[in-house]
């Protein structure tokens, strides 16, 4: 029982981070219909920026955080302006492929920076381990998880109660109609990329706080995409639930099935789950079923 609960907790903590990344992908998809792999790199660079400002330039924490957020937002904006905006009007699939290209471009740069080592962001969240009976919860991980939940709350509120949120929701429904009510859809695209980059940046910092900046960090992007597909590409609650389910499933399969099949199941579990869900519910748990016309 203890083992099961321990796996559940580990899964929950990891799942929260997946969910946050998935949320940033869902944000972009909701309003621009582009599923982005580039967010894996935005996440990684969010962590790198913080590392640069905090560890190499030795700026105070608050300034470093603000600068890292600004730099990541700029990066999101640049990606949108240079690669995705010229593709408006082209088939959506080109936009998807261009995010792959962006991923590769930044992956090369990322590898040059990390050079196979790890970069450790100086700890600014509490360290240590919390014990509840026989269960162990690393405090840093718990902080990251709580930060993820808070951000989810903020996103929900923003969508519901602000004017920008209203515009975002309107353009998500229908570009033409949104335009006719005086909303600049192009501007909305930029805003959404900035917001989504910020969310990815928080996810990156939260992840790097637990796992450091390791050379496979950008590959979280694929995980994020899987979670987004799993929960449904249009649904932010879907991202949260999908992320947590994935985190728990990964840990449970590694915990109980690894000894049976000989290891390595943690990574594969996500993909098997994805294949199953795509066969049963192609648009994810909470996704909109698209009706196509000829």
């Amino acid at each position, binding site marked *: 029982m203890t083992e099961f609960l321990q796996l559940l907790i580990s899964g929950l903590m990891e799942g929260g981070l997946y969910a946050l990344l998935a949320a940033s992908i869902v944000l972009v998809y909701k309003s621009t219909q582009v*599923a982005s792999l580039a967010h894996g790199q935005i996440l990684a660079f969010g962590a790198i920026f913080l590392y640069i400002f905090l560890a190499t330039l030795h700026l105070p924490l608050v300034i470093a955080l603000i600068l890292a957020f600004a730099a990541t937002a700029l990066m999101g904006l640049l990606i949108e302006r*240079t*690669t995705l905006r*010229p*593709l408006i009007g*082209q088939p*959506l*699939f*080109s936009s*998807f*492929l*261009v995010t*792959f*290209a*962006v*991923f*590769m*471009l*930044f*992956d*090369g*740069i990322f*590898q*040059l920076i990390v*050079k196979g080592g790890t970069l450790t962001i100086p700890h600014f969240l509490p360290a240590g381990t919390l014990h509840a009976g026989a269960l162990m919860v690393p405090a840093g991980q718990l902080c990251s998880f709580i930060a993820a939940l808070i951000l989810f709350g903020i996103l929900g509120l923003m969508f519901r109660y602000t004017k920008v949120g209203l515009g975002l929701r309107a353009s998500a429904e229908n570009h033409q109609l949104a335009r006719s009510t005086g909303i600049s859809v192009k501007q909305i695209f930029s805003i959404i990329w900035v917001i989504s980059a910020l969310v990815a940046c928080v996810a990156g910092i939260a992840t790097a706080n637990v796992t450091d900046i390791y050379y496979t960090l950008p590959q979280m992007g*694929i995980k994020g*995409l*899987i979670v987004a*597909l799993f929960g449904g590409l249009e649904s932010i609650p879907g991202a949260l639930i999908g992320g947590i389910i994935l985190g728990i499933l990964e840990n449970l399969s590694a915990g109980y099935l690894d000894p049976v*099949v*000989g*290891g*390595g*199941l943690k*990574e*594969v579990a*996500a*993909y*098997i789950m*994805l*294949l199953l869900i*795509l*066969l049963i519910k*192609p648009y994810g748990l909470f996704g909109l079923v698209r009706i*196509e*016309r*000829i």
Partner: protein
Amino acid sequence: MRPCGIFDERYTQDMAILRTKQHWALLVGALILLYLFPLFGSYYLVSFLNNLFITIIVVLGLQIVSGYCGQISFGQPAFMAVGGYASAILTLKAGVSFWLALPLSGLIAGVFGIIGGAPSLRIKGFYLAIATIAIHFVTMWLILHLKITGATQGLNPMPPEIFGFPLDTDERMYYLIATVMLIMTFGARNLVRSKVGRAFVAIRDNDLAAEVMGMNLYHYKLLAFFISCFFAGIAGSLYGHLIMVVHPEQYTLTHALWYVGMIIIGGMGSIPGTFFGVIFVRVLDELVLFASPFLSEAFPWLGASPAAALGLSAFGLVLIVFLVFEPRGLAHRWEIFKASYRLYPFAY
């Protein structure tokens, strides 16, 4: 490539791939050059061409399923692995001759491709693309954990023999690989202008419309996956016997990204485009390899000759440029060139 003033008078003329005497002369010349190349080309160029030809076979398969049928697949390296392992197991454990194992490995990979292509029945677009990524990882995990594949040890297939004469060097394998590549190209070129090829294009352009017209969508989608994986399997088998090893670490997802990039750069839905794309990307990668020592000397913070990372970045950049400025790829340039050649000396 038809000069100005030549017109078709019969259907057979219109359908011919080679239309003029110049065509035939060019083809024969190119073939002679191709087959005599190992006699004067350096060893390095021969082995480079071997890799290039194998890549062309894989990417031709990808071109059929993605460029013609519109089902983007990132599973090509996994199916290459299936082909390579099938061939290695058949020759090593079942004692089958290489010449039988080669087509068989293609077929086996093709059958796996039908299984792998099954999600395409329900999903398309990037849903399918992500599903094929999932298939890649599941396949590679299986290979790493099965006994028959040698698990982490891999297998060592022997070089093929022809009448007791072993094809054990790159120069000797070159003839085999070049021949297979030509046959596959010929097959692909003819396939895409047959009924099947037209059905693929119809599905790519609008699958619902194609279905309404009475096409069996599932049949053609699975057929496209079968054919593409057949190509991958053949290439995997050739590659395994060329380097005499099949190992789980040879087939990574990065390769799948490169293959998809190649058809984008070359031009989706074009057989010559496949060639352009593969050659362009491979040459680019080689150039980066040459340039990286100088770059790392000029910019010490890059570290020592970081060719792989720079190659990745260069490739990503080129891909972005092509997607944004020339989405139809190099094949489109080639068409423009052909059209202007046909009209010469007139402007239009």
